[in-house]
């Protein structure tokens, strides 16, 4: 994990790299792919929920809980931080805070995706 990754990914990512071996040489990339696919789905759901404008905080929090879970599993630290903020806004029922933070979540998510794409390409 190079410098470009610093801050974006934490030790958990390194744990994953340790799991990679000759038998499973692309494990990390596989996990990352799965993560982005699944998280895209969650982001979509949250987007739609927010667009509806009804702000069912419970529901939003549920989605975010899942999203945060998988993000932490791959070590996406920045994304995770934004998720936590989002959940906090949900907890207090701050709709505007949720909207704002969610933009951040998406931004970090997209950034990470790009970085990882480069990372995997480079390591091949």
């Amino acid at each position, binding site marked *: 994990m190079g410098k470009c990754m610093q801050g974006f990914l934490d030790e*958990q990512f390194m*744990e*994953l790299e*340790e*799991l990679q071996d000759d038998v*499973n040489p692309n*494990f990390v990339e*596989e*996990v990352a792919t*799965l*993560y982005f696919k*699944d*998280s895209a789905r969650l982001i979509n759901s949250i987007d739609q929920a927010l667009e509806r404008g009804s702000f069912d905080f419970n529901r939003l929090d*549920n989605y975010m*809980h*899942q999203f*945060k*879970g*998988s993000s*932490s*599993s*791959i*070590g996406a630290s920045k994304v995770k931080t934004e998720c936590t903020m989002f*959940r906090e806004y949900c907890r207090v029922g701050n709709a505007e805070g949720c909207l704002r933070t969610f933009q951040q979540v998406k931004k970090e998510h997209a950034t990470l995706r790009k970085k990882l794409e480069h990372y995997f390409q480079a390591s091949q």
Partner: protein
Amino acid sequence: MLNPGVVGGSSNSDPFPAGLRVLVVDDDPTCLMILERMLRTCLYRVTKCNRAEIALTLLRKNKNGFDIVISDVHMPDMNGFKLLEHVGLEMDLPVISKLMSADDSKSVVLKGVTHGAVDYLIKPVRIEALKNIWQHVVRKKRNVSEHSGSVEETGGDRQQQQRDDDDDGGGDNNSSSGNNEGNLRRRKEEEQGDDKEDTSSLKKPRVVWSVELHQQFVAAVNHLGVDKAVPKKILEMMNVQGLTRENVASHLQKYRIYLKRLGGVSQHQGNMNHSFMTGQDPSYGPLNGFDLQGLATAGQLPAQSLAQLQEAGLGRSSSLIKPGITSVDQRSFFTFQNSKSRFGDGHGQMMMNGGSGNKQVNLLHGVPTGHMRLQQQQMAGMRVADPSMQQQQSMLSRRSLLDDAVVVRNSSRVLPGATHSVFNNSFPLASAPGMSVTDTKGGSSSATAAFCNPSYDILNSFPQQQHHNNNRVNEWDPPNMGMVFNSHQDNTASAAFSTSEAYSSSSTHKRKREAELVAEHGQNQQQPQSRSVNPMNQVYMNGGGSVRVKTETVTCPPQATTMFHEQYSNQEDLLSALLKQEGFPLLDSEFDFEGYSIDNIPV
């Protein structure tokens, strides 16, 4: 037998068993994939599942197809806790709950434990944490084997794949490696406790509670009355060949916890309080339930230990893990929970006459004050457990709780805590078992004295204990709890140990394992049960939650019971003692008897 694979070298010098069959349930595909990879790295056999219902179906279809279940508790389709419960009730599998390290992690952990989880993992999961999950399986198996009377067998049954052997009592392949201490202890106990083993040396086949069987069971229980149903009668009514009283007893215990959970814990606790108060030193009553709570809430440490105690006392520490608790344990469990009501009714007939054949009853008799303290703690722990369970922070750390419990108990007797401490470290098998609990014989007499006048200053003792177990207190080791519990039961009724006998009767089964302990502690061997306690631990979860008490059927030597009768005329004392015993062992699987001498017990 599969040779245990060594992955990365375990610290115990015992390679964890390869081939352990794990079922992983998580709705997050990323986590599922990662976990699978990690488990495979540990050489476990993994089955993935993203829905709780599917998991349940899988488990039901392959009753003996898995050794352990790891389940996320935050799943959309089915409440993860429900899954825990089901698994616990229906199968005898250890379940580890998986949760996110988020705001409410403490309460979630508590909830998981209440539902029977034997342990918990926090996301993101590290592979290190997974390396030790086999211990839960071993522990459970040990408890089961112990019941079957082969102490050696239970010892290091790490070969999970030998699940089939479980039916034989699963003790055949004791891999003592993991439980060096435990093995040593067991050996010692065995030697001393050979005579104590009243149960057949045959391994008891593990009973699988199928839907039909369970329905029969429920019908019998309803017919007899939930509160009055005793394993013996239930067994008779069910009239199922091959089913032993211990099987029924352990299942009953779990069932009761389950019902309790459904119906609210209050009732049970109420009973407990009641029984405590009845015929006992009034100071006990309030002390038990309330003071402990106060203590618990007062400080983190106490609370944690209480929780542990509570868990231990009440039932399974972990989620639905199988009810491997020996019947004896169950009894103690029951007595603890139910006996209270019984006592209230007039002295736990169950206990006394061993209608259920619980030795536990006897235990109460001789329960010295020291025990009471423990029990109180337990009670308190139990009660407190609900609110303060949050303190239970690391189920993984298994010790502190037990230590506390042990400490408490130790006050009543002098127990060699050394051995326990060793166990505390997550030696699921060996250590926890109340080995340390053994009180010196000498203690019994003094213990008796101490008991005479139970001055429960749990409040006082708590802090003390806390000190003792500083390092341990905070660790609630559910599995340990079970062990603790068992240890009580192990107390074989040896006349020599009047008090211990009381306890031992209920934990005769433990005795076998802890022959050594038994010899030592005349008074309450809360610890000895550590081995069998494990399962119990799981069971003893706070009554509030669906704690399933998985008790292995421990056969208490009938003699012990009788002895108690003779020795303790005061059922109430016995009850309190019993309660104490039960309460404590549960909490600390590792009896860390810090050497509370009886003298310390304010009588």
